[in-house]
């Protein structure tokens, strides 16, 4: 396989994990426009643990994931006081604070970035992405996943059915934050370099778009969304800025004609036939 395509596959694997992080939170009805902040914490966490403590990726990656999940829990409590546009803005501000802190801390490399010595190869990335995909499919099929989707549709009724709303939403932020951190840790170890500028607001915007355009109703959504927007532009081989214009046009058209995303439950029902669909998570 050429270096070009293995590079794209690596980005794809990271995008899928990252998109599932945003998806899990969105499934519970929360829009997280601070994805880049969580990913940055995972990336810098892994980089620093490797550099300072000499840990191998087998330790740094799980530790960075756990760290970001804890940050997710910590940020969930203030953020969950807000909703709608306020939550979008609060998570956005959170990511700005994270990258701002990185830029001002010389120990974190500031604007120069950090070199990450330990390398994680492509097969590991693909394996983790596959495991995360299966894990999220599992999650959506559990009672926890059902509670999340119920909160997304109608929070008041979910509570009146006995769903512990706050606990489920915090769990959503913890799992979602952890997955975004996992994506960041893998990014750091695979590309051997992290810099704050990569974790820009635009990255948060892109990953939220992957998820909303893929569809939040089923776990297929982020997989399809991330894959589509990572691979199709490469296949089209359209250069530079036109790629983003086409991307933008697709987004606008999608919201006009299919606002619930590419993959919906009714689409799955049609693809799989009635009976199979009855069993689909």
């Amino acid at each position, binding site marked *: 396989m050429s270096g070009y395509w293995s590079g794209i596959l690596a980005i794809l694997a990271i995008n899928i994990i990252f998109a599932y992080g945003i998806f899990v939170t969105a499934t519970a009805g929360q829009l997280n426009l601070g994805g880049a902040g969580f990913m940055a914490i995972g990336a810098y966490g892994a980089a620093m643990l490797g550099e300072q403590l000499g840990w191998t990726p087998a330790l740094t990656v799980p530790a960075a994931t756990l760290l970001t999940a804890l940050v997710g829990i910590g940020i969930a409590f203030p953020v969950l006081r807000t909703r709608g546009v306020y939550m979008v803005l609060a998570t956005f501000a959170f990511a700005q604070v994270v990258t701002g802190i990185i830029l001002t801390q010389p120990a974190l490399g500031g604007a120069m970035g950090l070199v990450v010595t330990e390398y994680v190869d492509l097969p590991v990335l693909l394996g983790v992405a596959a495991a995360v995909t299966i894990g999220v499919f599992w999650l959506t099929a559990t*009672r926890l996943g059902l509670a999340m*989707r119920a909160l997304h549709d109608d929070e008041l009724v979910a*509570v*009146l059915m006995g769903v512990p709303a706050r606990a489920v939403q915090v769990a959503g932020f913890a799992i979602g934050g952890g997955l975004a951190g996992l994506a960041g840790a893998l990014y750091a170890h695979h590309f051997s370099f992290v810099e704050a500028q990569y974790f820009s607001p635009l990255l948060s915007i892109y990953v939220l778009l992957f998820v909303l355009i893929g569809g939040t109703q089923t776990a297929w959504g982020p997989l399809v969304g991330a894959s589509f927007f990572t691979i199709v532009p490469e296949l089209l081989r359209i250069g530079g800025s036109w790629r983003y214009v086409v991307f933008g046009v697709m987004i606008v058209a999608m919201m006009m004609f299919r606002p619930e995303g590419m993959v919906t439950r009714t689409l799955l029902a049609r693809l799989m036939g009635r009976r199979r*669909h009855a069993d689909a998570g």
Partner: protein
Amino acid sequence: MPDEALLTVAGIGKAFGGLRVVDDVSFTVPRGGRLGLIGPNGAGKTTVFNLISGVYPLDAGTITLDGKAIGTLPPRDRVLAGMARSFQNIRLMPHLSAVENVMLGQQARASGLGALLTPIGWMPRGRWRRDAEALLAEAGLDIDPGDVVSSLPYGIRKKIEVVRALASRPKLLLLDEPAAGLNPAETAELARFLRKIAEGGTALLVVEHDMGFVDEVCDRVVVLNFGKRIYEGSMAGARADALVREAYLGADAA
């Protein structure tokens, strides 16, 4: 002990702004009893439901369910104490299937991490899913349990709401206008189903405009007007009561 009180509502009140929507209302639902809550539009029936289920905090009064004071508990703890409700306007989760909506109703019975993390939507038919499908069938719903509810007809969705509330195996079932919008055949079938549930020992508290339906399902009624209780007793007694007639038909008819 058939006459022991399951739900006791004592002197509850609620005001929005200066308007007293519910004013000093008291009644009891005995264990296994079937109480109808009726009254003209705007009498405060749905507000009473919202106060009992914990959507709004009480301004005054107490609510006791099965010997436990629940008037100040959050909604979820009231569900755990043994009540479940349906809604006047269908509020099923539109993106979930029929059986998933019913499984959501089971939430109060599932506790612990194990119950939270076991897949309930997949091929190996766990007990939760079998239970939910059985309940749908018991209600006479001839549908594919996997159908997404937003694609189902009104009458069926209305019935799924009742089944979802039943899925928690409540001691007390609150139904807010369960027959509204149903045709006569559907209404009669729903009444039969509710009587069967009541025979199984579940107490019912029903808000409904269709008096024939109330007569058929409930053994006693409470009539509200302008937030106050104006009558409690049998349906036949309510029909004969001057105050009730005045509330429904205006002063002239009384």
